[in-house]
């Protein structure tokens, strides 16, 4: 947020700043719950997973902001926002219906299910945005790097939650990936804001994995 304030237009990347602010508040909240109730307490577990779901929803808003930046010249921002909100509500209802039909009906199961689905839908939306960036030949380095790092963040979290859902006992495998992704995302955004100004550009053809 500080980088955005000093190095770029704050309002332009408002949703990214909103996510970062929420991320800091959630970290403070987690620390308070952790010191009062301990790491293994049910209070901390519930707070951790619910705050994670809220942060993911904030990331949806960040993604909406990026869609608005990329599609600002086409004037379809409002339609995209409505579509993404409907998708978010649909994902939540779908996750609830999956857990409602299962035998355990545990709240933690619901949280893992919804987190996996939210991250996966976020990944799909980021992938679509990335395809749109290539199609529209978007060349702003800062936007490209923010979108790609967000895609990596969603991928790592979706993969680790899916692994967790399938193999709950493999904690030593899936336990560390979300932490690494959580560190990577702000660092990549700081790099994008510090290293490049808003008008720095590169040739989009250089980015596709398959040369064009």
């Amino acid at each position: 947020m500080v980088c955005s304030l000093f190095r770029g237009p704050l309002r332009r990347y408002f949703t990214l700043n909103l996510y970062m602010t929420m991320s800091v508040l959630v970290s403070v909240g987690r620390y308070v719950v952790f010191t009062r109730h301990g790491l293994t307490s049910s209070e901390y577990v519930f707070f951790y997973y619910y705050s994670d779901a809220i942060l993911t929803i904030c990331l949806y808003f960040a993604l909406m902001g990026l869609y608005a930046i990329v599609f600002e010249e086409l004037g379809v921002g409002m339609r995209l926002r409505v579509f993404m909100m409907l998708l978010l509500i649909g994902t939540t209802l779908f996750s609830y219906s999956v857990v409602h039909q299962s035998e355990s009906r545990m709240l933690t199961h619901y949280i893992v299910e919804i987190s996996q689905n939210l991250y996966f839908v976020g990944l799909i939306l980021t992938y679509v945005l990335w395809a749109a960036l290539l199609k529209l030949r978007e060349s702003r380095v800062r936007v490209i790097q923010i979108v790609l790092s967000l895609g990596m963040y969603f991928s790592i979290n979706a993969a680790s939650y899916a692994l967790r859902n399938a193999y709950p006992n493999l904690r030593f495998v899936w336990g560390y990936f979300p932490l690494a992704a959580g560190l990577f995302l702000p660092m990549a955004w700081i790099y994008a804001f510090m290293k490049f100004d808003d008008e720095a550009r590169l040739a989009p053809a250089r980015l596709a994995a398959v040369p064009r």
Partner: protein
Amino acid sequence: MMAALIFVFSVAALMQFFVSYCRSLIAASARRALSSDVQDVIGIRRSANGDDFARVMQYLYLCPDRREDRNGIKAIGAYFRLLGAIGTVIGKLIPSLRAWTESERSQCAYFAAVALDRRIAHNRDMFAEQMSA
């Protein structure tokens, strides 16, 4: 079943995002020309070779660190190793992929050379500031 599908798709997407992210880092430094001093030291003029990467990285480690370069260099180091593994394992079966990985590895080496150039220039500036103070 659903979790397995999500896992497979996520890992495939992660690889694609990672490759594109590294290519965006490389592309941002590809247009920058190396200073004559660095060209003389590492023996790279306009284009580098994949085999130069390890040597240039050793020079980079000798140079005092710049915080803003650190993450980019780490990411490109991981990308270089990934390319090496892909080139060795799959490159035997698909020769065109091997050529592509070689071209990417040479660009990684050029990225490292540009990072070295920046570090040397930064340290020279710092030294000049200290001398004038």
